[in-house]
């Protein structure tokens, strides 16, 4: 479990950059926790405060029962050995082979030669790169490099994995396979993963929780399904707009009608609620947009729909929907 208490970070310079503003955040153990925000929002800074690659200007960072701010350099090195980190640009050593790269953190914790060999081989098996053991990073594709990065980060059996835009330099296909690998690791090793990204699909694909960061300030935090289907702050709503539903062209809109956005989660996504509603009430429904998808493992659906009819009938239908659905939002 990681806890931020009023964490501040200001980078000196002219003008100074207030990169983190009073961050209060709890990251539960064993889950995949995503932090999303635009470029420059302060995501990397926040992540790097966990292992003190960046020292906060104020506030406290706790990892389990340790106050990270107060550790001496050698205590800090000790703690870092229990955390893995992967990077957008992989940061592998060009002078070492795949084997040598994965062996590196094991050398740092003074593992014996024979043990290193055994461990590296099993890690390369885990990430599916056993056949590249003698290759140099320059001979690998981006996805392969990131797999080496993951193997290296897991070498010392950390309980925490920090991912800084780990898939942002990869194409969509490769991104998917790397994300699947992260999910597998999270489940099989019961490892806490904190990842930062500017890409919604990454959060949608594997995260249990999400925190939205804007301009150095935390906007909202919660289970992905809640934050994505019921965004509370304008900045989250803005961010989700393009992701979930397209802008409806004004020609297609009839201003007399009521525009609704319906979000179905889990089992509700399977039920024929709309047809029930039309049968029960004296209204017409015009569906403008529909989508069914899943958040990690939770199915959800989204509908943009216009209702026309008498005001009381419309209100009744909306109530009916609210009784049956997770979320109904009247857009106009």
């Amino acid at each position: 479990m990681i806890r931020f208490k009023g964490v501040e970070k200001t980078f000196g310079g002219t003008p100074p950059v207030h990169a983190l503003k009073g961050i209060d955040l709890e990251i539960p153990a064993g889950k995949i926790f995503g932090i999303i925000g635009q470029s420059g929002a302060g995501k990397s800074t926040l992540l790097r405060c966990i292992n003190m690659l960046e020292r906060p200007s104020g506030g406290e960072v706790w990892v389990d029962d340790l106050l990270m701010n107060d550790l001496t350099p050698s205590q800090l090195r000790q703690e870092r050995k229990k955390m893995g980190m992967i990077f957008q640009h992989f940061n592998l050593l060009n002078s070492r082979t795949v084997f040598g790269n994965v062996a590196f953190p094991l050398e740092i914790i003074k593992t014996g030669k024979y043990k290193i060999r055994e461990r590296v081989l099993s890690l390369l098996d885990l990430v599916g790169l056993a056949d590249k053991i003698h290759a140099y990073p320059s001979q690998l594709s981006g996805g392969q490099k990131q797999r080496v990065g993951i193997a290296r980060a897991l070498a010392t059996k950390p309980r925490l994995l920090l991912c800084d835009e780990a898939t942002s330099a990869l194409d969509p296909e490769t991104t998917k396979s790397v994300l699947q690998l992260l999910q597998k690791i999270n489940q099989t090793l019961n490892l806490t993963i904190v990842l930062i990204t500017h890409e919604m699909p990454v959060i949608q694909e594997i995260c249990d929780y999400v925190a939205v960061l804007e301009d150095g300030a935390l906007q909202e935090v919660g289970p992905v399904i809640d934050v994505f289907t019921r965004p509370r702050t304008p900045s989250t709503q803005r961010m989700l707009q393009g992701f979930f539903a397209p802008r409806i062209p004004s020609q297609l809109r009839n201003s007399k009608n009521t525009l609704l956005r319906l979000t179905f989660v889990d089992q509700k996504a399977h039920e024929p609620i709309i047809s029930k509603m039309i049968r029960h009430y004296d209204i017409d429904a015009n569906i403008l947009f529909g989508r069914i998808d899943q958040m990690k493992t939770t199915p959800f659906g989204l509908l943009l729909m216009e209702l026309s009819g008498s005001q009381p009938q419309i209100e009744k239908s909306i109530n009916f929907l609210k009784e049956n659905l997770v979320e109904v939002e009247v857009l106009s």
Partner: protein
Amino acid sequence: MLWQATLETLTMVGISTAVAALCGLPLGICLTITDKHHILEQPYLNKLLGSIVNIGRSVPFIILMVAIIPFTRRIAGTSIGTTAAIVPLTVAAIPFVARLVETAMKEIDPGVIEAAESMGASPPEIISKILIPEALPSLILALTLTAVNLIGYSAMAGAIGGGGLGDLAIRFGYQRFRADIMLQTVIILVVLVQGIQMLGDKIAQRLYNR
């Protein structure tokens, strides 16, 4: 005679390159790691070292050679001859090597150093397992460049009685009008420089290609 002079030149260049590398490498590492945002940031120490290196590099070799004669005498026991020439050559090469080492190490992606820090590597581990191995091809080229430059300087040292090919060219080729000897020394110098450069390039290329 030519053979003798060539050997002298090789001795001077070989020893001074080796000693300069031994002293310049740690100095270059200190320059690197004490710089801003590096693993052992020390602004004042960095400024101090940087100034010393700059002063060393801005004194023309011919002046340096004369200026440190007392020092040379104490180390080599004499101020003329091949052994004596090694001292100013080394002194001139140390700051040069240090800057080249620094340049080579600054080319390493900071992300790689950061990755090592994130794994709990200590500064000595980062130096020995990251900085030196990652910069190795550039370090080899730096050493090559140093040796080549020292060949030129050693000829200058020859002018004031340091022995070697430069000495020979001046005493026979120039003062006694022996154009043939002048030509031969020049050819040997060219061959030496080419040979060293090719060797250095080859080793570096090998390291780059992995």
